[in-house]
């Protein structure tokens, strides 16, 4: 145990804490709180009832006041720890409140009404997860639809991206032809053209080909990612050309070379691109916001933003749906974070 502590508190140089060690750990612990804290806070909040959300100052965990059925009363009554005039404390159920006085009964002996000043009573609280925050939006609102739309866009766009980008990368890495450098240049140049610059004309193209208010209108403009072509091409350049020669001698057609040789061998890079693409498409916001104007077509991101922009924000639903929207990304973060970080560190691409 002591060696474990020594190991965990190991620091620069000798035995004493250097001031940089203190800065380091303050920064790291602070970072842990600042980076994870907000999302954790949001997740805890998402399990609170509207009443719990309105509470100030808020509690971390979702508490509700315990209720009890008392004989002679129709509705369940809230339970309180009441301080009585004689100084003792009893658990009582509140019948009604009149001004600053609360009329209470003992749940076990409901005959006698006890009057307590409201300052002298504390609610008896229990932890309760308001899971209806999650189930209601799916049942009553269109969130299931939005979830489905998001999944459809993400999966379809990622599949097309993988195929289209890998085909282009194959052509650009394994064939000699006129205009290869020009094609490469065009692809790199598109890195310079972000969506916000071509927003208006892209919209007009999408509408003139009839893809306005269609999920395909969201998908198609995003699939030819220059980043993807770039990552895959760099990887394919490491595949020896002799393999392709061998396959040609083996009577493989160029398509078979692509599908049977190149694609399986590029699997690691394809996996990285797939992860990137899933995160990109899942998180896309501005473009779907423009293309999709019918409620039943919204993706999660658009739906969330529209609902949260309404005058009367139903935070308990919004928070729960925000958590749902985070889930895939958090899963990617937990299981595949290493792929992404090495991918970014090497290429500087996001």
């Amino acid at each position, binding site marked *: 145990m002591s060696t474990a502590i020594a190991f965990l508190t190991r620091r620069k140089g000798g035995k004493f804490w250097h001031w940089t060690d203190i800065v380091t750990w303050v920064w790291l612990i602070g970072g842990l709180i600042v980076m994870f804290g907000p999302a954790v806070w949001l997740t805890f909040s998402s399990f609170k009832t509207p009443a719990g959300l309105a509470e100030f100052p808020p509690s971390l965990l979702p508490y509700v006041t315990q209720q009890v059925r008392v004989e002679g009363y129709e509705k369940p009554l809230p339970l309180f720890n009441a301080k009585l005039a004689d100084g003792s404390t009893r658990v009582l159920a509140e019948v009604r409140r009149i001004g600053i006085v609360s009329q209470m009964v003992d749940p076990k002996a409901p005959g006698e009404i006890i009057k307590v000043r409201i300052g002298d009573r504390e609610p008896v609280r229990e932890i309760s997860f308001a899971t209806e925050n999650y189930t209601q939006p799916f049942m009553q609102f269109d969130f299931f639809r939005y979830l489905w739309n998001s999944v459809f866009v993400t999966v379809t766009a990622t599949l097309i991206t993988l195929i289209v980008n890998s085909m282009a990368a194959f052509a650009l890495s394994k064939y000699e032809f006129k205009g290869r450098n020009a094609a490469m240049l065009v692809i790199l140049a598109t890195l310079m053209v972000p969506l916000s610059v071509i927003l208006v004309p892209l919209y007009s193209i999408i509408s003139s080909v009839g893809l306005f208010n269609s999920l395909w209108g969201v998908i198609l403009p995003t699939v030819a990612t220059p980043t993807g072509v770039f990552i895959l091409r760099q990887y394919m350049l490491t595949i020896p050309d002799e393999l392709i020669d061998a*396959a040609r001698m083996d009577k493989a*057609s160029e398509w078979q070379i692509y599908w049977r040789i190149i694609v399986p*061998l590029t699997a690691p890079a394809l996996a990285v691109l797939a992860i990137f693409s899933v995160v990109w498409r899942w998180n896309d916001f501005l473009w779907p916001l423009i293309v999709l104007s019918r409620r039943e077509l919204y993706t999660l991101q658009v739906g969330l933003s529209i609902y949260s922009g309404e005058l009367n924000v139903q935070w308990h639903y919004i928070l729960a749906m925000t958590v749902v929207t985070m889930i895939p990304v958090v899963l990617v973060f937990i299981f595949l974070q290493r792929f992404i970080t090495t991918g970014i560190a090497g290429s500087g691409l996001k």
Partner: protein
Amino acid sequence: MGSITLSNIQKSYGAVHVLHDINLAIEEGEFVVFVGPSGCGKSTLLRVIAGLEKVTGGDLKINGTRVNDVSAADRGLAMVFQSYALYPHMTVRQNLAFGLENSGMPKPEIATRIAEAARMLEIDSYMDRRPGQLSGGQRQRVAIGRAIVRRPTAFLLDEPLSNLDAELRVSTRAEIAALHARLKSTMIYVTHDQVEAMTLANRIVVMRAGRIEQVGTPLDLYNEPANRFVAGFIGAPHMNFIEAEVAGSSPDGLTLRAGDGTLIPVALEGTALKTGEAVSLGVRPQHIDLANGDLSSGLAASVRMVEALGSETVIHAETLGQKLLAIVPGQRRLVAGETITLSWKNAPLHLFGADGLRIGTAQPR
């Protein structure tokens, strides 16, 4: 089935000419080795035959049919690559089957062929492993197996032994020779190693700078090299060349004068060499022996270095104003700086003109 004819084959990349006017007829069942220093165009020539490179001029015929515009897949040839080029994501079995599946062969026949090849090459025990799990020698066998199952018109082998260690190279060389004897198919083999060429070939094609220097059986090339390049390339260690000029001629021979003025009389019939013409005299190290102090029948030389290999002794000597290498059988006690007498009494002396071309084989007189 399996004859390949090259006539006036040219290959250039833009302005760079890699192959100049190659003419060669390869007979059915022959084992032909293309040999030459790196960059001589031998690999390119093989790839041209394979169909992996397009010819820029001339005719390429397989079994009499012009195949210039036939794709690599349809030429019916199989190739073994220097890096083996096994598909890393497939098992050995899948590697062998890939080409057969592509030509639409029914599954049972594929299985029979693979089983047959596996038995022949003794690779049965690792048919379900992937190339990454195999040793270099095992990969080599699989690469050959992938060619065999195709039952090709001809086998093309591009430096197949260069990635193996020395010991394995010798044994695999013997196996390839045995394989050829058994299959009796045409094989074209590219190497830069003249020992491989000598041991394997029915005929050797020596290439330099995109041109064929000489074509012939190994012993033809060894005994009668067409020029100084072939003479120097074939045989190890290299042939010694003594630069000399013609000092005088008589009906039964010539007298040559070496760089340091020593006169060397040789017997040579029917030459038109004139006095004063520059020639070089080639003699293989193995053909030089030690004369036992009898200066009249040999050359005085001083020993620069001695390599005792046990079975033979390699002597780096200096004589006639230049360096000379001699390999003598057995063990000799010699030290650097010692003066010895070398003799080439029975050696064939290869005489080359100033242009490097062969004049003839002379005998010492």
